[in-house]
């Protein structure tokens, strides 16, 4: 995401890390999550799901900031993200 200027408190902000989960069999390949991810974390994968669509694939797992935009724009309930720390705590 392009910034016009670096925020003055940029060094104090802790950027969260998210882990993207994709439910491949629900995906219908509309590409909304890939197109509108602000960090461009996703891309189309080469594999097919059961219905013959290409589900997304995580291209840059370290860049996800857990903003949940993919989760909210996905019309298929097929993608969501969880915060990395919480997930490790659960395991």
């Amino acid at each position, binding site marked *: 995401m392009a910034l016009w200027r670096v925020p003055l408190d940029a060094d104090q902000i802790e950027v969260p890390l998210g882990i993207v989960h994709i439910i491949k069999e629900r995906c219908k390949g509309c590409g909304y999550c890939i197109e509108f991810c602000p960090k461009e974390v996703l891309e189309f994968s080469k594999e097919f799901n059961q219905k013959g669509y290409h589900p997304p694939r995580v291209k840059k797992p370290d860049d996800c900031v857990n903003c949940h*935009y993919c989760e909210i724009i996905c019309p298929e309930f097929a993608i969501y993200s969880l915060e990395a720390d919480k997930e490790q705590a659960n395991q």
Partner: protein
Amino acid sequence: MTTAQEAQREAVKHPLDDLLRTERIPHIWCPGCGIGTAFSSCLMGMKESGIDLDNTVMVSGIGCSGRGAGYVKLDSYHTTHGRAIPFATGMKLANTDLNVVVFSGDGDLFAIGGNHFIHAARRNVDLTVVCVNNFNYGMTGGQVAATTPHLAKTTTTPLGNPDSPFNLPLLAYACGASYVARWTTLHARDLTSAIIEALANPGFSFVEVLAPCPINYGRRNKEKPLDTLRLFQEKSIIKNNAHPTELDVDWERGVVLGTFVNNPRPCSTDMYDKVCRLEEKPPKKSAA
């Protein structure tokens, strides 16, 4: 990644799975259809607003978005064509504690059900109406609807729609709705917060959601689903409290989004109790 890790990933569920009849998912909506996003925002709004979900009913009519009632794991009601609002009004009158959400499409709410809408808004029945506006009759094959923009091509207007579309927020405002907002599926976060506000508003709340219909509307107007969303991104103007007369859907000029009316007034059940439930009033003295 090993299969064990994969299995663990699969076991983690989508955050909205507790509100979905997952055995019916994947739903019937086409790839790129905006109803899924509108539906997911609606569920997210219902979850985040903190309303009692055991006391919440989702009502929908006929059409693509009418399928919404079948996918939600709450009490839900799939009604006859255009009659979602009358059924919802009846439910609200019978049990005033219910939160009633009407989730339906533009054809159902404004073409066949137009009269029900205007009277429910006039009487300020405590409903939350989420209208998915996809600019045509999607389920029946993409015919021209009351909301099709001027000059847009549909199966029944191959030369372009000669008529002007409805300005839905203006209609809702003129009829007396106490909360009116409009967002697109691209503005899913604002849409979710609008739905939360609409649920909290005591009275008739109307949220219009502009949604892409890639198969029946987009294909005839040379718009891929992503093109429609880019159009929503480039041509939308966010202007809260804009006057409802400025809200025509004209993509050449830009379409205004935002919250336009948030003006609570007494709702129909309160006024009914005040006028017709006389138990609390002292009995009239008899003539003798």
